[in-house]
Structure formats: structure tokens, C-alpha cells
């Protein structure tokens, strides 16, 4: 596919408004942010689209700011931006931890959170963080914006509520109470696709999310309730093993994912005690 690139059209709008207008009028167009997923899809021949829109010039979408209690991260913020941001380090350290584990430095410099969310891989490493942070995804089209709770964003394996004329413009994260915890398990020390990835928050109502164990990132309401009820960790692990149904694939086995998820739950509970 490499050399087929010449057959592709790339639009390069300078403003968000222009980009959204293009998405409406010249669509369907595939947005490109850091291109770290799109490039691989082109290489693997799994991306049939011929027309693309480059978002990388829309620098306002790269901003990270605070609005009252809410942390607002622009969709074009890269993982390196997140790692370097004092705001994020202070209020959402688990997102910094996740960003540090994504690919390697090159990917962290280019890859964006908008791309991670829109790509919607069940192994996307930032996704469990947004799930437990109860983030809101801000979507825009030529008519205006709408806000979708992260928990309602995905509708299935790599499917979401994102419409063909819409872009993700930001993620809004309300203040998170309690100790944050993140852990990624991969085979290699870098460039590893998660076998299991967990983000969690220790509070009177603990929140737990897992990646790579289901078609989308998942919250574990029953496990959370068990922990909130004061039941022991062993009981919570038992509930967790009922609650998820991971699969066998190239990267791992279902039994492994189940066991490690339970082990991570215990590790979370012990380290945040």
C-alpha cells in the first residue's frame, strides 16, 4: 500500500471551522491527527479510504486547560504534551502514567488522545483512564458541539457514536476524588500492545476499568460495588472473574487475562490502601 499513497487526497484545512465544513461537504473524509494508527492501517491494507483531512494544523485543539473544576484536554494533545503538562500531572496522574506506556517516545510525540479515542481499539491505553475519570467527549460538526459521556461513546468493537461529519475536539474531565492507579501489562518494555490494562480510583465508591479484555474498554460495576460494600478483595476478585469474559488471541490467552485482571485488582487494592 505504501506506494499507493500517491493516489490519496489530503485536505489541509487551517481552522476547525474549515475542517468541519469539509467534513460535511467533501465527505466522507478520514481525519488524520498524528497518523500513527492511520499509517499502520494503510500499510496493512485495512484502510480503504482515498480521501483524508489533516487536523495537525488546528493548533487550538492541542490546548490543555482548566475550566473551574474541569480539566479540558484538546483532542490534538499528544501523549508527550500530557506527560509534560503540569495540570495533567497534578489532577490526572494516571493519564500521565498511561501516556508514558504508549508505544515509545516517537509514538508519544505524534500520537494524540483524539486519535486514541476515535481509533477505539480495546487495547487503547488511555481509554480505561477516561472511563474511570468519567470523562465527557466533546464532539463537533458544522452545526455545533455535543457532549457525550465517555461511558456512552462506544457502541461496540471499534464502533462509536461519532458521526461521519464529526470530529472529537476535546475531552472534559471532572475532578477525580481519591487515589488514582494505572497499570499496563504487555510483553515487551516498549511498543507493546496491552494484554491487560487497568485504571482505577480508590474512593468510597471505587472505580475500575479494564482494557483488552472485551470488545471495548469496560467499567466493572459489580466488582466496584463489591469493593464499596466492604467485602474482602478475594470476594471482589471472584466477582471480577465473573464479570469479564476475555478471549484467546495471538497476544495472550483468556485464562491469562482473567488471572492477571484479578491480580491487578489486588495490586490496586493493596497499593492504594
Amino acid at each position: 500500500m505504501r506506494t499507493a499513497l500517491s493516489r490519496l487526497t489530503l485536505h489541509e484545512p487551517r481552522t476547525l471551522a474549515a475542517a468541519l465544513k469539509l467534513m460535511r461537504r467533501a465527505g466522507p473524509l478520514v481525519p488524520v491527527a498524528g497518523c500513527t494508527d492511520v499509517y499502520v492501517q494503510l500499510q496493512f491494507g485495512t484502510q480503504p479510504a482515498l480521501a483524508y483531512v489533516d487536523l495537525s494544523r488546528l493548533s487550538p485543539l492541542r490546548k490543555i486547560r482548566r475550566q473551574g473544576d474541569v480539566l479540558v484536554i484538546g483532542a490534538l494533545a499528544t501523549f508527550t504534551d500530557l506527560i509534560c503538562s503540569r495540570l495533567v500531572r497534578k489532577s490526572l496522574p494516571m493519564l500521565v502514567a498511561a501516556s508514558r506506556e504508549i508505544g515509545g517516545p516517537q509514538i508519544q510525540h505524534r500520537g494524540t488522545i483524539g486519535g486514541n479515542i476515535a481509533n477505539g481499539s480495546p487495547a487503547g491505553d488511555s481509554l480505561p483512564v477516561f472511563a474511570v475519570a468519567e470523562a465527557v467527549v466533546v464532539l463537533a460538526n458544522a452545526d455545533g458541539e455535543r457532549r457525550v459521556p465517555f461511558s456512552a461513546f462506544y457502541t461496540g468493537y471499534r464502533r462509536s457514536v461519532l458521526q461521519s461529519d464529526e470530529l472529537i475536539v476535546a475531552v472534559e474531565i471532572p475532578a477525580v476524588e481519591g487515589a488514582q492507579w494505572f497499570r499496563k501489562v504487555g510483553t515487551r518494555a516498549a511498543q507493546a500492545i496491552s494484554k491487560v490494562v487497568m485504571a482505577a480510583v480508590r474512593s468510597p465508591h471505587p472505580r475500575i476499568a479494564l482494557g483488552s479484555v472485551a470488545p471495548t474498554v469496560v467499567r466493572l460495576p459489580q466488582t466496584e460495588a463489591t469493593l464499596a460494600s466492604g467485602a474482602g478483595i478475594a470476594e471482589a476478585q471472584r466477582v471480577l472473574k465473573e464479570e469479564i469474559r476475555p478471549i484467546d488471541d495471538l497476544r495472550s490467552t483468556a485464562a491469562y487475562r482473567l488471572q492477571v485482571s484479578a491480580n491487578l485488582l489486588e495490586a490496586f487494592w493493596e497499593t492504594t490502601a
Partner: protein
Amino acid sequence: MSRERTRFVQTTVEVEGRTETRVVEVPAFEPAPWTADTPLSIVGTSPLRVDAFEKVTGRARYTADIIRPGMLHAVIVRAPRAKGTLAALDLDAARAMPGVRAVMGPGDAPAATRLFRREVSYAGQPLAAVCAETLGTAERAARVIAASLVIEAAPHVVTVDDAMAPDAPRVRNTGNTTEPDIVERGDVTRGLAEAEVTITREYRTQVALHSALETHGAVCEWNGDQLTVWESTQGIFRVRSDVARALGVPQAKVRVIKNYMGGGFGAKNSAGAHTYTAALFARTLGAPVRCVNDRRAEQADSGNRPATVQQVTVAARRDGTLTALVLDALIPLGISGWEGGPAQIFHEMYACPNVRTTETCVYINASGMQAFRGPGYVEGAFALEGAMNALARALQMDPVALRLRNLATRDERANREFSSNRLAECYAEGMKRFGWHSTVHPPPSTVSRVKRGIGVAAQTWPTGGGPPSYAHVRINSDGSVDVLAGTQDLGTGSRTILAQIAAEALGARFETVRAVIGDTERLPYTGNSWGSMTTPSVGPAVRMAAEDARMQLLEAAAQLLDLPLERLSTRDSQVLPDSAAPLPFSEVCRRLGNIQIVGRGSRGPNPELAVVTVGAQFVEVEVDAETGVVRVLRVVAVHDAGRIINPALAESQLHGGIIQGIGYALFEERHMDRARGVTLNANLHDYMVPTMADIPAIDASFLDGADPAANHVGARGIAEPPIIPTAPAIAAAVADALGVEVCSLPLTPWRVLGALAG
């Protein structure tokens, strides 16, 4: 040095563990060996590798970078399933596409190329090819042909268990297995009876892919009836003879060139489908044609290290003395391959009197194996060294002490003495560097989730090299020097090493010497760069050529100066008379006018000795008991390869081997879909090689010294040996950390966690 008439004698040469007897020429003279005490000033130092700047600036042109005027691009269409008969395909639609220049399918290539057969026996097998003006067009046309393939599927097998099942479909007409190859010495039954401790294990190793950064590829161009082939290869002369035979043209009309190479690791020893495809299209179309594997083709069909299933028994007395070693191995080769199996190291590594190995090769419907860095020994060492470590644990004996007790003192397999074998010193030096005795590791704790462990394993590997190998050394009229040898550099630094040897022997300054390699048309023959043989094979030929050139220069200088020969010597590109002022080579050559001094050298026969490179590796790992993830913290490697020509280059061979060994131990594994018989991870995304972040501190070193009994340069090979002990050493460290053994590779998190769960 008087010149006698050349005579021919028989000698034995070991290539990748296979012993061959050859008739070879005895050189006119052999220089006296460089011993450990010979003072050398260029050999043994680490000048910057001569192609360093070309490589880091991107100026070095690899085969894939060759662009010829009017060059066309060829792409091979490969079988999408593992077995069947090609019932139909449509080449016309592709042929009609704009930009497509030619297509080939069944019947269009000479039989000797074995290309485009209708019988499909593995997924990835070449079925057709297309040639177009751009690579993009060729790829699109290849997809059009692929979509038209109709294959009448037949049942296939891609695992050893399926191939061995009673009603298994036949992979070859002769059956799915070879006759067991049994090699025995001593009396194993008695050895087992004498044992006080017996360890029995089943070890399984995976299929590993070479994954060289530069894929297989060729650019072919005909000029009249003369063919030039630029090929990424470990053997330019081998490619020449392959192409000449397959296309029915004289070798004299075929020229093979290889300048730089991004890795071969054993998979690039001959011409391949890409070579023949490019050569055939280039001939029909009268234009240069490039055919280079994409990564998917490379991972799916360019060779592999075959899997093994090894039943091992080691038997010993309570003091650790081995009484028997038994191996029963199954080796699923793929559709083809050779029996470079795990048995050999069982016969060579230890001084055990009773050894029996049984190897059965199994054919499966998968791409055929190729030699892969330390073939057989890597797989065998995982089992043998694993079982030795298990024995040490059972005996509660230090694993190094156990090995020292059973040290091989001669090559029992071939019944020969060693030219030199300093493995005991490697252990001693490694223990010192690692702090083997001082490292205290607490018993496995149930509290801390991260556990540490240490492990050791060792290696032997036949690395004597041998004839034939020829070299010429020319002294130019300004005193600079050309070294001409038809060898090739896989990335190991051959150019630099050969220039060092020539400069040393001539007494020339290193900067004035240039080694020219990689061209069959202009250079004298040397063999393939395999079996870690290039330095011990070509090095002595280059030294002899340089000594010959030096003698001629001195004889001429003696005439010019009117001094007897014995009063002259050379250093720093100068002729040094014992009484008069030094005379630069350039001055001698100026005075000689247009006389060109050409020294000729060849590699002499091998001694009747076993020539081996040995070494020991010590490893510390961290295992996360919660996730099963293994991290290697540090590796100490001490090997003895005789004289080290260039320590920096040799050390980087150790680094490369150890890193590849870490990949083999922890990550790398070809996955096949049993139902469809296709490779699932034919890419570098799911076939995982180590990243920089996975590479630990590596302390790599060599014993000082030389092996003058092996050859007169005193050097042995080093490229393959370092990968051999890495995986078993890591496995031993994991077992030490967890208290349970994992006997299957790679040591993936799920296997480790599974072992912990019992």
C-alpha cells in the same frame, strides 16, 4: 620462502555443524602462525569500522536502494492456503492493466527455479508474478491475480502433533517423517543404570523468524547475454552458480554484486524466488527489474528456525559426574530443510561417556526452514543446558561446579583433540564479573510481587572455517593497498577486519589499506559467510596475500637499496633498512615505476583438530509474579574465540547475539492458524523482537589470547556462538526466581504465570 608446486590434499571443514571433507589446495607457503606472544599493532585494536560514515549518513547503498535507469518492479503472488492444487488463475486482467509490463504463472519459469508450481504445499508459496513500471502498480496487479486464484484445497498439517497423527494427511509422498537419525557413543543403558540422579524433561522450542531489517531482494539487469545481479546475500558466488544453473547460462556471464547488507542470519545463503523472478522478467523485458520482499513476504516465506520437541534425560552420580545423556527430538522442518538439529551439542558440550541422540525430522505444510544463527545448537542448548540446570538443582550443586566437573577435554564426537578450549576460564572470568558467588538471593518470598533470579548456561560451536578462500593484495604506485577478496559483509565488519589483517602483515598504515569485497566479477573466490567462518577462512588467505606482497616489495627494495633482504623490514608503510633511513612504500613504488606488486594468498587445509568457540553467559532477571512478565536485568558474557581482530566489532557481535537470544527467550514466536495453515503474525507488530527498552546492561568480553593451532591468524568465529546460551541462561534465572521451571519457549507472561499456578 621458496615456492613449491601446488598440491591438493583432503581436509575437513565444519559448516553450521555439518562436517564436510573437501579436496583443497596446499598453499605455496604458509606464514608462521601469529601466536599469543607475537607483537601486533593493528590486529587487536579497534579502528573505526571503514563503512561507519556511509552507514550512519545513509550513503551506504543496500540492495533495496539500487535504482537503475528504466528499472521495473516485480511482485510475487503467493498461495493463500497451505495445500491444494491451483485449478485456475487469471493473468490476463493483470496483464491488461496500464503500467503492467509482464506476468508469469505456472509453466512460465524454467523448472530448475522451482517457481510457480501448480501443487501448493504451503501458504506463501510463489504461484505467479507481475512486473510493472511502479511498485504500486505491481502490487495492485498482484492483488488482482491473487483475487483470481482458484485452489482446490486439500487437507494440510502445520503442527508437529497433527503431522504425527495416525491418519494425518501426507505432506510429502514419502511420508511426514524422516528415518530417525540415531547417534550413540558408549553404552547409554549402562550409563542410566549407573546413575544416582536422573532428570527427565520435555523441552519445546518455537519457530523463530530471522527478521533481518533488510528483506531478501535482488535487482537484475541484462546487458546482451550478460546478467548483473545485485543481491542481498551471504554468498555472492553461491548466488552466481544458482542463477547460472537455473537459467542455463555460464557462470562467466553472471555477475553478482553485494555492497552492504542489513542482516542475513543464515537465511540468505542462496538465490531465491525473488532473484529468479527479477532475472527472468529482466531478460524478457530487456530492462532492469527489482524484486524485493515486503515485510509480510519476508516473515511468511524466507526461512525460519524450526521448532523442536525434545525429550531429554540426563543421568549423573551424586557428585555430578554425568553417566548418560539421551535426547529424542522431533524437528518439524516445514516443507523442506536440512537436519541441522539439536543433537550435536549433546555430543560436544560435556565429557559424558554415554550419549545417544535420536532426531526425527517432520514435514509440515509451512515455509521451509533455513539456517538461523547457531542452527540446532540454539535449540539443543535450551534443552541440554536446561536439563543441566535442573540436575544442579536436584543435586543442590552450583551449576557452574556441575559444568566444570563434566568439562569436555576433547571432541568425543569426532574423536579429535581441541586446537584450544578455554571454557573453564570463561566460567571463572564470568563468575568474577557477575559476582556469581557473592550474589545472595533470598528464597522465593510470597510478599514481594517481583522476584529476582540468576542463571547460567554455556556454549560450544565449531568455528574453524576452512578452505577454499582466495585473496589478492595489490600495492599501488603510491604505496596504498587494495585487498581483493570475493567475500561479503553481512554487517559484521569484514571490510575493516580484512584491511586490519592485511595492514598488519604488510607493515602498512591501516588508513592506506582498502578491502574490496562483494563482486564476483572482479574478485577471487571465497565461500559463503555462514557458520561464523569468514574471519577464520578469509583472514588467513588475506594474510598470506599480504605476506606475499610484502616479500615482493622487500625483494624489490633490496635491489634498489643494494642491501640483503634479511636487513629489511616494514612498518608504518615504510621499508626499514637496519642501517639506513626508512624508505616509504610510496618511494619504493615510485622508483619501481609501473610495476604492480600483486600478492596472492589462499586458505590452507585445516589441522586434524576440533576448532570450537566456547563461552558462558550469566543472567539476572526480574519476574513479576502478578503478571508473569520477565525482564532481563543484566547479562555477563565471556567467550573465547581465539584472537580477536577488532574488539569493538567482536563485542558488537556478542551484543547482537545476546539481544537476539533475549527475543528468542521471551518474545519471538511465529504463530500459525491451524485451520487455515497461514502465518498469523507475518509482520514486526505481532512478531515481537526486543526493543531498546528490553535490552539490559550487557557486559560482553573475550579471553585474551590466540589459537595458532587453528590457523596462522589465530582467530576463530564469533558471530553465532553468543546467541546459543542466552535463552537457557534466562530460563534458569526465571526458574531460580520462581522455584518452578518453564520448559517451553518463549517464556511469555502466560506461560510463566501458568507455571506459577502449577
